[in-house]
């Protein structure tokens, strides 16, 4: 594990606020917390992607491998035009992110299972995938807290994977894992910007 031993404790504290019942809270604090977590996640996304590719063999492990054409229908893409992104209101912005990270947590779980089967002898990769999933869940909780603070409705959790996930071949599973770890990085980057914007909008 690359993150310090105290990291799980930090994550725990970050997870706590949404569970705390009570009076309306200022959005600045959950935004700040979510922003900090997103920044922390951002530092590890490229490591996760590189570790993942390294264990999959050619072409994934080839230097400079990139396949932007590979997409997953079950995972919304993070790419969006700046104009559209900037025009989003708080509800849409947080809703998109919420939906994406909900999908990402489920996909990361799937990729973790796939890799436990395909690469059982690589605990580093499995640990990084598990850590990424936990952080995505933590960010989800923070976003829910923001939405609560802003008085926005929290979208219900959905099974984004559906029934198509099973029966994929080993190569397809490798590709799927690549798309998930790549999009996890993209969505984390976008979340940092989303939260920075909200942070500016709702100063403490």
């Amino acid at each position, binding site marked *: 594990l690359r993150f310090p031993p105290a990291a799980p404790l930090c994550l725990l504290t970050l997870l706590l606020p949404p569970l705390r019942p009570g009076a309306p809270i200022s959005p600045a604090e959950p935004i700040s917390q979510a922003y900090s977590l997103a920044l922390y996640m951002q530092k590890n996304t490229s490591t996760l992607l590189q570790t993942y590719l390294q264990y999959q063999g050619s072409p994934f492990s080839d230097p400079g491998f990139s396949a932007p*054409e590979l997409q997953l229908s079950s995972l919304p893409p993070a790419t969006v035009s700046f104009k559209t992104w900037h025009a989003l209101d708080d509800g849409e912005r947080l809703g998109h992110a919420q939906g994406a990270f909900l999908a990402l947590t489920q996909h990361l779980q799937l990729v973790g299972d796939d890799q436990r089967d395909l*690469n059982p002898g690589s605990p580093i990769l499995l640990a990084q995938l598990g850590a990424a999933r936990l952080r995505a869940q933590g960010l989800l909780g923070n976003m829910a807290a923001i939405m609560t603070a802003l008085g926005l409705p929290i979208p219900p959790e959905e099974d984004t994977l559906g029934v198509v996930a099973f029966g994929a071949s080993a*190569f397809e599973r490798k590709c799927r894992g690549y798309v998930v770890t790549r999009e996890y990085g993209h969505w984390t980057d976008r979340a940092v910007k989303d939260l920075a914007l909200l942070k500016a909008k709702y100063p403490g």
Partner: protein
Amino acid sequence: MLSRSIKLGPKCKVEHCVQRDSCKSRENYSTTVKWNQVLRWSWESQLPLECTQHFVRMRSGAADAQIPEPRFWGDWTSWEEVAVQSSLGHHPLSVFPKDKLVEEGSNVTVCYVSRSHHNNISCYLEGIQIHGEQLDPNVCVFHLNNVPFIRDTGTNMYCKMDPGGVIKGIVLFVSKVFEEPKDFSCETRDLKTLSCTWDPGKDTGLLTQLSPSYTLFESFSGKKVICTHKSWCDWQAAPDSQEMYNFTLTAGNDLRKRSVHLLFNLTHRVHPMAPFNVLFKNVSPTNAAMTWRVHSIGNYSTLLCQVELYGEGKVIQKQNVSVVANGELLVRNLEPYTEYVAQVRCAHASHFWRWSEWTRDNFTTAEAAPSEAPDVWREVKSVQGHRVVTLFWKPLSKLQAKGKILFYNVVLENLDGPSTMKLLSIPAPANCTELALDHHSYQIHVTANNSVGTSPAAVITLSRDPGNKDVEEARVKGTKDGFSLSWKPQPRDVTGYIVEWCEHPRDPRCDLQWKSLGPNTTSTVVSSDAFRPGVRYNFRIYGISTERIPYLLEKKTGYSQELAPSDSPQVHIGNLTASSFTLSWKGWPAEPQPGFLRGYSLYLKSKAVQCLPGSEKAVLPDGSVCCKYKIDNPKQKTFVVQNLQPASFYEFFLTPYTSAGEGPLGTFTKVTTQDEYSRILIRILVPMILCILLLTILCYLKSQWMKEKCYPDIPDPYKSSVLSLIKSKENPRLTIMNVKDCVPDAIEVINKREGARKSLIETEPTKPTYLHLLPTEKSYPGPGPCICFENFTYNQAASESCGPVPGPPKEQPSQLGLLTSSENVLKALGKTYVNSLGEIPAGETNLNYVSQLASPLCGDKSSLPTNPPEPALCSEYKMQMAIPMGLASPPSITPLDEGEHYH
């Protein structure tokens, strides 16, 4: 994989074609069929079915042996299409087969199917592009032959479509060849359970996809067991009903199955359990009864058990015993008080298959009384008139002690006085005791005691006579293995010999050691790890009389290895002369000496090329050459280096040597021999200088007086000392000396040859004339003084000789000695000068007053006419000389004697 249900005759032939006009394979399938039976036949196509359309048709024929050849085949069925492609969906690119699992070395056919043949598709196996066979515009087939095992997570093969960048691929799981189980074996420990084991061989390399399974099948019973472990399996035997077993171990994974067989009789595969309950009973000093139990095998099966007895790590006894249930063995010939380890194992007696594991236990035999007397020796010292005896003994060996020695008993028996015994009990592990005894004779008995009994006594007698007779010390040469000592056999009865020595002679505690030897021994080798090179060890050899009295026979001394001296003595130089010097030293060096001193080496360095007799050339470690004197006598403490060059510089260094060599070269001492003449010169010059110095000081101190006496500025004839002498003696009225007063008896005129004089003292401006007035006895009326005139005023020698008037040489030996020494000096300086003075000593010694009054005549004026020739001689001088009569001897004698003596 194709699967077909067919209704066919006894033999079928199936033809499988990729396309109708290109049949790829044809296979036969034979079976016995019944009427209306539905057959199921599966086979696998080399080319994945997804790659292209496959067609299949079949026909059947009878394969009955009763029907002779040629057999007749029925008609082919119509082609039937296997259409898997239609279910592929609409992916732009697909690669088949998916997740193929193969053994390494096998051939795999892969294809891609694209929806559009306008695209450029390239395919790669592990990053290396591969080229295939275009089956149709949209399908390309790749034949991968002899695929290798690369990694346990599979080998990627993928195709990339341009444009669009679509990537599709497969993972080819290549396993290593599945090996046959090795060393398949079954055995039973109790005839109830069979335990079968095998070596599964190398792993297939795939982590999860290919976990092998193992199945055990016994053909007689028809039973089958699926093994849960990959290397062993248990089987419940039926000893009562089944004796023979025929096992088939089948190992398999998805790719391959392998089988091994084993047929055996159950009773021939008995591997007994390890014996248990090993006990030792009735353990005596030499025997023990060993018992054990075995696990029963069947009904009263006999086991063969093997017992091994270990003593001090070695097998000392090995025995086989037949056992049914309880084993027993009497172990004999043991040593007392010794720990033994016994171990036992068993095997089936009638059909040996395998020994059981060992079961071991240890036991210790009982103690017995010590068998040997301790080896005892003594050291006798005299402390303040008392006899102090230190008694030493060596601990008994384990074999001798036969138990744990608890204490030693020392019994003192006074042999001279009334028979008294004194007992001392010294607890172990002490190995010595000190006894203060009087000067009586004592006999000492020492015994060692353990819990069982007492050892025989060691006896040693201390006689009244100390017995330290003078024995000459002989040298012995040691080696690193020890000292080989030998001694003369004793004519009288001896019961043994003792050799004693100090293990650490430089240590005050000495650490006395001894060696007891039998009466017939006259030599031994003393060796010890404590012996060090360069340490002198002293050995004393004692004979033990029949009365157990030790008496000193011989003394030996030596080194295990002699070393060269480590330092050199201090050398003093003495008796340094022009040709020799003497070296003396205080002997070398203080104790301890690292070897026997053999002598000394003297190194002498000089400028001379040749070495002097008695020395030889030697090259020093620094490369310089010098002469070396060998002094063979180690007791020599002086050495005279002779035949040296005077006033020469020498360097020397003295070093002792032993048999191991010389001491280290140190600093050379410098010495310079004396000059040959310098000593003589010093002997002469020093007194002379002292004498001159004395005279100079005297002259300086009395300069005024001298001036007045010898050369006043204005001489006063009335103050002439001569006159005063005359006046005081003869005529007080006379103040001026008259010639008439001096009545010459005879005048001798010595007219020196002028030439000779000139040649001697050329600087002399005048010709001296000597007038010796020799008074004639009797005719001389009074005590008139004898006066001699000589003008010494301009004579250097005369002026120097001023001073107290010396008496006759014979009367003043000290002055004579002075003269003698000055004569020597003169001799040394030059004879010419001595000669020039040698003619005047008479005048010189008698001269008392020298004046240069301008009197042309010598003597009274009236005497002038009477001495016509005289003025010619004395005209230039007026010389006065008065000889004090009180001091001088009668003038008639002294001048004559002196004159004769000097002329």
